[in-house]
């Protein structure tokens, strides 16, 4: 199938794309500093909440989590840095309290696992596909509409 991309068509594509781009472009002007609340939230976002499976502490509205958040605020107020507060929670509840597992120790296994798995599956699939590959060249199928005489000749030659 032959299709040429004339300048007109390309220009049309560009215009559609630009319109879509404008649609796609969301407001990105964010990030005024909200003070202590905002800093608490930043720390809380990195922690798991004991009462909300999956959601981070900042997004969890339960009472237990409110206490944790109050603890973070109190420690930040006392002059601790964000990292120190996080470390405090790790020392108290273990590394499992972090949303993202640390990239060290046994947790490296959790990070390596998907990569190893993916590569292993690719290798296995490739090996299977290689084995399934046709060893001899595919039989030549005459294209539809070719000369019946030539087809008959071809058959004769192959049977001969």
């Amino acid at each position, binding site marked *: *199938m032959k*299709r040429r*991309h004339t300048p007109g*068509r390309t220009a049309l*594509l*560009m215009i*559609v*794309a*630009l319109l*879509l*781009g*404008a*649609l*796609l*472009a*969301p*407001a*990105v*002007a*964010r*990030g*005024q500093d*909200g003070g202590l*609340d*905002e800093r*608490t*939230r930043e720390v809380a976002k990195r922690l*798991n909440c004991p009462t*909300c*499976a*999956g*959601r*981070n502490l900042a*997004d*969890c*509205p*339960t009472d237990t989590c409110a206490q944790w958040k109050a603890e973070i605020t109190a420690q930040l107020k006392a002059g601790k840095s964000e990292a120190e507060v996080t470390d405090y929670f790790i020392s108290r509840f*273990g*590394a*499992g309290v*972090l*949303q*993202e*597992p640390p990239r060290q120790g*046994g947790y490296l296994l*959790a*990070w390596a*696992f*998907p990569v190893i*798995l*993916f590569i292993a*599956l*690719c290798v296995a*699939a490739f090996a299977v*596909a290689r084995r*399934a*590959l*046709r*060893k001899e060249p*595919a039989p030549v199928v005459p294209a539809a509409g070719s000369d019946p005489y030539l087809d008959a000749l071809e058959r004769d030659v192959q049977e001969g």
Partner: protein
Amino acid sequence: MLTDVGQYAVLLAALLLLYAAGASVYGAQRDDDRFVQSGRIAAALAFPLMVIGMAGLLIALINNDFSLRYVVSVSSLGTPLFFRITALWGAQAGSLLFWCVLMSAFVFVAMQRRWDADRELLPYVTATMALTLAFFIVLTLVSANPFERLDFPPSDGRGLNPLLRHPGMIIHPPVLYAGFTGFIVPFAFCMASLITRRKDDLWLRASRRWTLVGWVFLTLGLILGGRWAHDVLGWGGYWGWDPVENKSFVPWLLGTAFLHSAMIQEKRGMFKNWNVALMMLTFGSIVWATAIVRSGLLTSVHAFAASSMGPIFLGFLVVMLAAMLYFWLTRLDVLKSENALDKLFSREGVFLLQNVVFVSAAVTVFALTSLPIATEAISGQRLTVGPPYFNAVVVPQLILLIALMGIAPLVAWARGNARAVARQSAGALIFAFAVLVAVFIALSLPALTPMTALAAALAGLCAYTAAVTLVEYVRGARARMQANHEPALVALGRLIARNQRRYGGYLVHLGVVVIAIGAIGKGFFGSDAIRNVPLNGTFTYGGYAFTYRGTQTVPCQFDDCSTLQAALKVTRASDAGPFARAGDFVGGLYPRVDRYPAQQFTSTIADVTGTFNEEVYVILSAWEDEGSSATFTVYINPMINWLWVGGVIMTLGFIVAFWRAEPSPVTRAVPVLQGAK
């Protein structure tokens, strides 16, 4: 009284199913059709009996019969009728019963098939279905009996879990369960085909539409679950990689992989053993999913051991896996490929790679969701990984799938031609590049970071895949227009009608792309902040100005709660960007907090405003001194609505693929119909 009838009906259903399994296999071995037929009828009868059982529980719920432990746990005198009915799946025991009812419905309909061409499979399809369903019914009765009576009935119940009093939660569980249980049909056909040592793809053809039904319910269940989480959990998101979500996602990934690889077998007679394995994995993951959610394994290994459900489930899983493995290994010789692969670069090859990605993603999600369970069992400490981990590890694989979706339609079966693919995708590539540039231009106004550059690249990828998919329709329709001189719309309609599976499938692909665009928008450009504001004060965030107008107590929707509602006026801020004017009114927001004193539960219900393309989602986080000041969490969710639209498009795609799809092999066995044209 009626409740007791219900309980006995359920018990009778289980007994009938055991009989059905025995009679079917016996009849098949003895070649005696009478036993096979009686097994078929017995298996079908389970459905009306289960409905009677469900009706018994429903009557107890509607009448608030507090002598039932289950009714006490999900209903109360103040619970409205509608929620007393949906309380049927409001907790463990009832939802398991409901699950069994749905599964028995699928069994019932499957038993009503004509069973002409595939009669040989019937006894083993019946036996597989009957044993599986019987297991779940026995499990319900033994370890989570919803009909259990209390010796001393209380005068009032505890009421339905407040989180479940939402339309999304009312429809989400039945839909998801239908997705899970629907897969019992293709699974049973698969096992029957293995047991009878069939070489052909009869089981695939016979169960294809059932697979689609299970798949679409699973898809809708996931999307509705996301919608519910978005509306009720007060966190602005839709997908949190939490264990309950993950366990539904794993069967979806495997089932989707199966839908694709089944095509290779149908077209080329290849990958037979792989398809069988994939179907068994899909159904196995469904049982696993149900097991870990229902048995309390998610909260703790100890909860698992404490309930009788855990060991029963474990036993069933082991038996099922052993049976699957046995039949698979002993039938590998009949599952040989009929064809050799001509070229690695072919539709088959791309599908194989796609299967690798699906399975890899599924196994990753499965393993890491099970990690806390495994580590707690071994060391006593639960190690968990959160959403950032899954985003980093699984999302790249999903992105790869979107890329494959844009390549696969262009790669021919058997022998792909890289040059032809490049030629055909030239237009789509130009379009994708243009989108990328456009997003760059739009972004460069405020900030260009590696993350936003990545977002632009992903938007380009989505544009490419969408364009390739759309061009498939255009090319086909144009060919028809030229060949048959049809008007454009007629050509398009007939094109789709001639190959509904193909074009329905492409529509599903488009839906996936739309969802991906929504996920990119929310994931890369979504932001949130927390702000404290005095009465009548204003704060600005994300291009919006929020003016706090006070709080007030309003009547709660239900009579076991009290509601405090805040009012906010939202207008455009001065930094709203080039398309808006400062001061333009956006909307009024009334986020609220519902307190349920009896349940010691507080639910924060967000309110949303904004445009289709950008949602402003606000929750009331705290307030002081009767509302003299209040704290709000604001989430700006760009393009999140694309997710729901994508879900609708996927459903439409399913309808196109399913509706009056090509005749099943049963009807195709009548040759007259084929010769007619």
